[in-house]
């Protein structure tokens, strides 16, 4: 049972993390290649606090606020640069995060932080808690899609200049997307730190940022169900299949490339298109 619990917990954290990126890149169309930095921010913040005997549950809002604050700063960057330039700016932020953390002794430097206290709950309870938080964020995402905020996000993702011509202050909405998305990643990071109980700079590097982007894109950028599904599968597949674990990066990158090349709208897009074809075929 213990193994299944670990799997389910890992899965839930990945789903939450992927959905948080989906909020920024999927809903609002701002491609981020440094999202792991916010997972890391949350993880380091939460671990530092629990090590200082702050109760785990209290560290969650703190992680969200700290990650969201840095997310706000990156959001400001998105007001200056767009599209692929935003992507490499966020990539730079990711490298910067790792580069800074490596050199900080109070964060464990190169070696990272080990011996992070376990959350004050049983492993089963922690699993349920992680699933609960992922589900809450999924429901929240689905709600936002339907709201006027989601309407504006659609418009910004489509054409930011037009959005402004329609009298909408796109900057504020972009900032909101960054703050909410990175705060979500911060919470995922706090869960991550107390699930694995060890974190290091390499846990939050470029490869992790690309992996989570792969989950979002393979699932179907913007689709809550698609992204949750892809994150669930891609996060546990390497744990279940040894062969996959050996070639995890190759699999992720090949999948990502294939999706970009042949179906940039991901699994959700493929499902949507086949459903449409099916409806046409059966009158």
């Amino acid at each position, binding site marked *: 049972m213990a193994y299944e619990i670990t799997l389910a917990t890992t899965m839930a954290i990945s789903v939450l993390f992927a959905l948080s990126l989906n909020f920024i890149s999927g809903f609002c169309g701002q491609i981020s290649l440094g999202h792991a930095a916010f997972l890391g921010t949350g993880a380091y913040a939460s671990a530092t606090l629990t090590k200082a005997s702050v109760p785990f549950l209290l560290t969650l809002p703190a992680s969200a606020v700290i990650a969201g604050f840095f997310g706000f700063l990156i959001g400001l960057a998105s007001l200056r640069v767009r599209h692929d330039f935003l992507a490499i700016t966020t990539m730079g932020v990711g490298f910067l995060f790792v580069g800074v953390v490596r050199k900080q002794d109070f964060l464990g430097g190169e070696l990272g932080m080990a011996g992070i206290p376990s959350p004050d709950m049983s492993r089963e309870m922690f699993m349920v808690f992680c699933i609960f938080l992922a589900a809450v964020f999924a429901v929240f995402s689905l*709600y*936002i899609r*339907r*709201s*006027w*905020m989601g*309407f*504006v996000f*659609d*418009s910004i*993702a*489509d*054409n930011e*200049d*037009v959005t*402004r*011509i*329609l*009298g*909408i*202050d*796109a900057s*504020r*909405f972009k900032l*909101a997307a960054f703050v909410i998305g990175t705060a979500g990643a911060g919470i995922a990071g706090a869960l991550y730190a107390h699930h694995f109980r060890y974190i290091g700079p390499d846990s939050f590097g470029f490869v992790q940022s690309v992996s989570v982007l792969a989950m979002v894109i393979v699932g179907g950028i913007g689709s809550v169900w698609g992204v949750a599904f892809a994150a669930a599968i891609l996060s546990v597949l390497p744990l279940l299949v040894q062969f996959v674990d050996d070639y995890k990066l190759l699999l992720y990158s090949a999948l990502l490339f294939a999706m970009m090349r042949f179906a940039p709208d991901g699994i959700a897009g493929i499902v949507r298109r086949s459903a449409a074809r099916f409806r046409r075929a059966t009158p």
Partner: protein
Amino acid sequence: MTPVLQIENVTVRFGGVTAVHDVSLTINVGELVGFIGPNGAGKTTLMRVITGIVKPQQGRVLLEGRDLARKSIDARVGAGLALAQQIVQPLHDMSMLDNVALSCGSRKTGRVITAMLHTNREPERDKARGLLEKVGLGNVVDAMPATLPLGYLKRLEVARAMALEPKLLLLDEPLAGLNQAEAAGLADLILGLNKAGQTILLIEHNLREVLRICPTLYVQDNGVPLAFGEAGEVMKNPDVRSAYLGGHA
């Protein structure tokens, strides 16, 4: 006569070239002003000064008496300006109806928190349906913009701008790229909007349609204002005639 738009002594230079030279222009409530000029007249530049993309070296632009300087495009739209662009830019991932409905929802999209708390799109869709009807697109409300020809998208631009209930409607070459019948139809629509009380500045190349519908003309050439006034008078002006007929000889 209440002025809606006042352009006061605006000059724009790009490097050594003066694109707009000391232009002043006032548009009053309910007017339909045609803004014409040969190629390179500086029409687009003046237009961009109004929308805020180009900053003038001198002069200022007032909307209902308020200076627009340093206001972003969305703030200018919020203040009562609306723009139908020359190059149509529909939002491709939503239907014609939602393109207009989003524009109708400015009260819900004005603040992030308000937008977050509201989900009901029906009132705006109803209003959008009415607007699409009005511009002659009642039969394609649920179509995706990419499937429709240019003439439809030009009208969509107008409907989206009208949805903002602007004090001043700026139309940037709405007739460009349309055939004669389409252009005449859209010109009639513009005239109709004006008759219903909408103040309009129409920047246009199609002289024939402008002369047909605009009671007032403003002519600019090489960035210099040539004439402004009643259409018939303006067209008799020798400077205007030579700008159009005799080149710059």
